């Protein structure tokens, strides 16, 4: 309680004190446990920023360079800490610039509350300056949204916003606040929300379904478990570990579920899906039981649906009823929080031994290692391959860093090569595949974990989509370690052009700036490497740097990511070249 002694700029008013809507909003954020927010001021949100000025010593504001960056940073922050990210922007373009970030958070189930200023309520619908229909425009990309037009609504609506964003299947909530509501007065009082009549966030575990599932697990000879982000969201990593070690079940982790199970555990068989590992893909079509926990059978995981695990019984543990049977028909569905469902299973699942089955994964892995992984990590030619960079950093950081990626080839290479050892350590854009995510997500990750090494991998395409966040990094002196894997191409699109469009490289080659000079302009040191013999020293310099640092590695221009399940193909048909 050393904080007691500290003198704050302004004391929090006692309940019943008259405050403005703006001050109430700031106080409400603090009541919800928010100590950090990401934002960008502007005309229609100025009263709130003015109120924030009095509380800036306990509500840390990260000034980004573009509102999209605020959303991605808040999302990354939320994913790492497991708490709700907060975003503050102005009306009109401030709000429309958020849309990509909201859509990304929506599809990746990230708890986030975004606030936008709005023109005074009397001007709504009149095409006033910087007015936009924020409610209409954000509806498809938010879990809930609400427009506040009266100051006295603020406490209750903010409480509901945090409750909705963070419970059940989390998601982004957008709150639009008219300027007159920000200026208006109310008697300060706050109560956190614990229930909404029409909202049923955590379905209780159905015991019969758990019994059925446990029975299937106990009699299965060849079980395979897919762990998704739901395991992380519900803090069920211990329960997952207990279940799979007790029943001897191989675990494959989805892109967003990657750090939910240690990368170096003997039962971890890698990532499934389009650029996943061979073993989990091939074995999906050989297992007799597929246990999906907190995941949604995305098409990048299933490939051709008709040929996805047709031989297997399928158990789907998922909190969102609307995901059940949406893509893959299940035999037993447990609609519940992953932790509670796994706890239920643990009371009934027996010890088991699937030695031969587990070992069969190793055979597939060896094949992949010999034909894909090793040749990429120990590349021989002049060109550096992305895999060797990521592998080297994984080894040197002992798999303990927080890792952020952008979207594209490098993202898959990182997912495949970084061996995570800690939960909530990997932040990437999954469902939306948002290029430009990496750098601002790096900002959020570093703000969330000041005491851990945070590495943001990006490609040269994505880096330039949100390159202005270098300004945020510089201004806030964030010791973010940036690794730019530069192949002078929009690599993933080029790979598809190579494989499926007769190598017609239609507008995928990039003429790039000297990135280290751009960084230098922001006062951020760095270096560029294009020779293998210089790589290790450069990585050491990156890891040893005290402040922000940009390591640009010129990598092979036309490296393809393998293995791959071509779009629309069965997961059994992975190609390795």
């Amino acid at each position, binding site marked *: 309680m050393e904080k007691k002694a500290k003198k704050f700029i302004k004391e929090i008013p006692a309940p019943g004190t008259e405050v403005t809507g703006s001050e109430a909003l700031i106080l409400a954020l603090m009541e919800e446990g928010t100590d950090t927010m990401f934002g960008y001021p502007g005309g229609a949100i100025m009263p709130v920023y003015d109120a924030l000025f009095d509380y800036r010593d306990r509500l840390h504001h990260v000034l980004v360079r573009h509102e999209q960056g605020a959303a991605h940073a808040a999302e990354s922050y939320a994913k790492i800490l497991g708490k709700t990210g907060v975003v503050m922007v102005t009306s009109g373009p401030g709000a429309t610039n958020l849309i990509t970030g909201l859509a990304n958070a929506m599809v990746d189930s990230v708890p986030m509350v975004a606030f936008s200023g709005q023109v005074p309520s009397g001007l709504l619908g009149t095409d006033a300056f910087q007015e936009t229909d924020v409610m209409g425009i954000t*509806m*498809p990309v938010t879990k809930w949204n609400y427009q506040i037009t009266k100051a006295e609504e603020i406490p209750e609506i903010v409480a509901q916003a945090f409750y909705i964003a963070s419970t059940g299947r989390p998601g982004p909530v957008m709150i639009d606040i008219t300027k007159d509501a920000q200026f208006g007065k109310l008697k300060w009082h706050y109560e956190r929300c614990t229930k909404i009549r029409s*909202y049923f966030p955590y379905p209780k575990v*159905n015991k019969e379904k758990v019994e059925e599932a446990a029975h299937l697990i106990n009699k299965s000879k060849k079980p395979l478990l897919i762990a998704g982000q739901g395991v992380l969201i519900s803090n069920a990593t211990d329960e997952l570990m207990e279940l799979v070690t007790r029943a001897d079940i191989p675990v494959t982790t989805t892109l967003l579920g990657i750090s939910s199970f240690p990368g170096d555990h003997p039962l971890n068989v890698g990532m499934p899906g389009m650029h996943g590992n061979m073993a989990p893909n091939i074995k999906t079509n050989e297992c007799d039981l597929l246990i999906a926990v907190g995941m949604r059978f995305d098409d990048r995981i299933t490939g051709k649906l008709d040929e996805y695990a047709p031989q297997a019984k399928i158990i789907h543990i998922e909190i969102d009823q*609307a995901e*059940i049977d949406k893509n893959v028909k299940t035999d037993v569905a447990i609609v519940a*929080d992953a932790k509670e469902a796994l706890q239920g299973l643990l009371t009934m699942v027996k010890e088991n031994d699937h030695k031969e089955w587990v070992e069969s994964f190793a055979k597939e892995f060896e094949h992949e290692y010999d034909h894909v992984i090793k040749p990429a990590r120990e590349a021989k030619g002049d060109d550096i391959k992305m895999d060797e960079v990521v592998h080297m950093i994984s080894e040197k950081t002992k798999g303990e860093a927080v890792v952020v990626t952008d979207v594209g080839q490098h993202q898959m290479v990182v997912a495949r090569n970084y061996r995570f050892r800690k939960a909530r350590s990997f932040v990437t854009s999954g469902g939306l595949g948002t290029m430009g995510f990496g750098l601002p997500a790096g900002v959020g990750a570093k703000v969330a974990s000041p005491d851990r090494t945070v590495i943001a991998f990006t490609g040269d395409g994505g880096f330039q989509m949100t390159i202005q966040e270098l300004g945020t990094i510089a201004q806030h002196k964030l010791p973010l370690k940036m690794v730019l894997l530069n192949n002078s191409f929009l690599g993933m699109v080029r790979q598809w052009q190579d494989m499926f469009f007769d190598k017609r490289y239609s507008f995928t080659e990039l003429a790039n700036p000297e990135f280290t000079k751009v960084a230098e302009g922001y006062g951020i040191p760095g270096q560029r490497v294009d020779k293998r013999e210089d790589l290790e020293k450069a990585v050491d310099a990156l890891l040893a740097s005290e402040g922000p640092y940009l390591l640009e590695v010129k990598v092979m221009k036309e490296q393809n990511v393998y293995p791959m399940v071509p779009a629309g193909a069965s997961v059994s048909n992975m190609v390795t070249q």
Partner: protein
Amino acid sequence: MEKVEEFTIKVYSENHIGLLNRLTILFTRRKVNIESLTTSEYHIPGVHSFTIVINTTESMVRKITQQAEKLVDVLKAFYYRTDDIHYQEIALYKVPTEALTATNEIEKLVRRYNARILEVTPEYTVIEKTGHKEETQELLDKLQPFGLLEFVRSGRVAITKPMKELATHLREKEDATHFVQNGN
């Protein structure tokens, strides 16, 4: 290929601004046309009901209904085949009063179709008929030759055959829910 059928979706929700928009997004996203939509206050205070008619496959209507129920402001959503509901639509027809008085043909139609005359003014007469779409359509076809001035048909209203009440559904759903995360 799965069979395309007529389904009636019933959604019960809070009466919040914008909810209709959130609901219709579910249909437009999947490119499903809404054939008719009726919304009104329900007999439980503060609850609103939507009756939505679509033509689609059962797997599609199931997914849309689940996604509707997932909306924060929605209490419950159900879908029904036409056999599982009693339903009506109301139609109003405006004809010149002259046509009504010239012969007794219109009066005969009103009797035969169980319609009723709502209003007679020197200029026009309003006829009202409730029934299924085929019935109101048939009367429309019959009235056309008399110089029909205006016609309007409502969306469907439907009462379901199953006896379980919404309140019971809600109580069960509430009993089967934790409102804060358990076990953390």
